[in-house]
């Protein structure tokens, strides 16, 4: 089986997964304790109005018909309207407003660890048991150990009082930004706007990416240490490959293999992990929207967002398989010679 055949097979496997995930979502929403009609009408509603709403929403129909409609709508990407949180607003519009903030946050919280954690880890692995290695490793453990919600609160309180604490105002530095507010994502192609949006998201992205940074540092270090002692590295040296080329060509690509699932695993931060951080920094993103929809029993909004989350996680999985396929030629190889 070729590498790309294997990749195609992995992609096809995702179809039943999307189907299964959506079905489970439906079951939890409809068979579970949430009563959407009661959620819409609120605690004061009378029985007649309640019955009318049930009727108009089609909640009296047999479950399998509801299921078929639910699946049909989602798979044709008709995500419907919110019933409770912003009544009557289409889900697509809501995603259009809340989504970019989460994507912006997620993007930086993945990128920062890759560009800080990985190089630090690789450096530590190339220079093991030196002072720099100890500092990096210790830092990695500290970053890894600080919980998101706690770190977020500390960041917010330090940054809002940075003027009093350090005589340096974070809010006024470079571009004027608020600390606890959704970032302004309009006009990102303009340097000042971009800088402002980046600066506004930076503390939250650092907090969200802190654990990943520690993870990637530590696993990057181990991966480099492992390939450093590999026989093919010694072979490369023995045939006269210069030291720098040995590191870049022969070590790093092999060291990346165990890091692929770590990095894509961090990408799931886009989903669940961001709710807490979004709440603390008041970045009204998808996590916040999902949380609101859930506690308010906004069934179509929850269902549609879940569907998008499922698509996203499946997409990340496909990306992971793609990276594997590109980096490691042994992927999809099932023995024999």
């Amino acid at each position, binding site marked *: 089986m070729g590498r790309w055949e294997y990749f195609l097979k992995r992609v096809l496997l995702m179809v039943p997964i999307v189907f299964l995930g959506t079905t489970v979502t439906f079951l939890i929403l409809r068979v579970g304790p949430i009563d959407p009609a009661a959620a819409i009408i609120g605690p004061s509603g009378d029985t007649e109005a309640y019955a009318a709403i049930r009727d108009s929403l089609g909640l009296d129909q047999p479950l399998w018909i509801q299921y078929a409609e639910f699946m049909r709508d989602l798979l044709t990407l008709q995500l419907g309207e919110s019933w409770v949180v912003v009544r009557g607003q289409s889900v697509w519009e809501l995603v259009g407003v809340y989504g970019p903030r989460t994507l912006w946050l997620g993007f930086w919280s993945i990128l920062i660890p890759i560009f800080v954690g990985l190089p630090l880890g690789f450096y530590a692995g190339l220079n093991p048991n030196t002072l720099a290695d100890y500092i990096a490793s210790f830092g990695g453990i500290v970053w890894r150990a600080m919980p998101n919600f706690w770190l977020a609160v500390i960041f917010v309180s330090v940054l809002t009082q940075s003027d009093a604490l350090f005589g340096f105002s974070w809010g006024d530095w470079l571009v004027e930004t608020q600390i606890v507010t959704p970032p302004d994502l309009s006009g990102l192609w303009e340097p000042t706007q971009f800088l402002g949006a980046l600066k506004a998201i930076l503390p939250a992205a650092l907090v969200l990416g802190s654990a990943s940074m520690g993870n990637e540092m530590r696993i990057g270090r181990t991966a480099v240490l492992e390939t450093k002692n590999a026989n093919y590295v010694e072979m490369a040296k*023995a*045939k*006269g*490959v210069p030291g720098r080329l040995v590191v870049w060509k022969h070590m790093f690509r092999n060291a990346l293999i165990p890091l692929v699932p770590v990095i894509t695993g961090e990408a799931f931060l886009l989903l669940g992990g961001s709710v807490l951080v979004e709440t603390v920094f008041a970045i009204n993103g998808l996590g916040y929207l999902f949380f609101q929809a859930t506690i308010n029993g906004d069934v179509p909004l929850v269902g549609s967002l879940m569907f998008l989350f499922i698509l996203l996680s499946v997409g990340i999985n496909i990306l992971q398989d793609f990276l594997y396929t590109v980096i490691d030629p042994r992927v999809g190889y099932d023995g024999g010679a």
Partner: protein
Amino acid sequence: MSRHARDDNVPLNADATSSRDLALEVENLRTVFHTEHEQIHAVDGISFNIRRGETVGLVGESGSGKSVTARSILGLIESPGEIDPASAIRFEGDNITEYTESEYESIRGDGIAMVFQDPLSTLNPVYTVGNQIKEALSLHQDLRGTAATERAIELLEEVGIPDAARRVTEYPHQFSGGMRQRAVIAMALACAPEVLICDEPTTALDVTIQAQIIDLLMDIQAERDLSILFITHDMGVIAEVADRVNVMYAGEIVESAPVEPLFAEPKHPYTRGLLRSIPSTQTSGDRLETIKGEVPTPNEPASSCRFAPRCPKSFEECSEVAPIPTAVGDDPDHDAACLLYPESMTTDEAVAHHRPADDGGEQ
């Protein structure tokens, strides 16, 4: 600085073989590994040389220091290991132990190349075999692009890989073990070396493939006038390939001789033991003879014969005097480091001969 500094392989025929005929000369090589508790003298003052076009064998059990010797020659010893500054490895007129890392890089590959023990792990799994051969070609032959690909295919054909044009684009995991070792040899040849170090090149392969690889190496040597240092623990392989043999034990060379006298009249009790433990040389008896015990870890400078605890012929002085290489037998190249020799002396005289100079025992 040490008695072992005396090179015992060369002097007797120094006139016959001028140093220009020597491809590689190792003199009093000591490689020490510093650990927290002790120093491991993995290679402890060995001397040998390789003449041009010759195959020199280095035999010994696991842990006797063979591979460390190979890596010392190529400058691949890393901290906590260290080559003693008094050691000398002469290649093309230079003492390469004094080389910096970048000077070493210039002789690795096109000066001295190496074939490693385990072909399954010496090829980088994420690059094609062709890519790795072409890397060597671009480093040492200045060949790139199509010319390099063509040369890589030629080399693969030369080492007996069928359908080389297709194989060159395949990854190591698509090769069988024997094929991989051929590919590794092709890679070493791509460097066009003067000296080829083969570190147990056949140990990880099954017997029929072993024979093929050895034949291949011998053919290549004849074609290219290569000098080969062949490291193995297999006396059978050594008998087949080597012109001269050095037997290593616990970091020291205990016996060195041309291959015929070594097999016909082994002098050192250790060599005798090794030869007796080859299955095919034993015609009688129902159990294979073995040398009992295992190689000790040389964690202090030699002050006695390191083989004495396992030696069937050891006597009291063996634990007090470290033997030095001494001419034995009829062949001028035949040396053994054992208190039993020289045979012409009585035991007391022989022991005195081996005793350090300040004890008055040196010749």
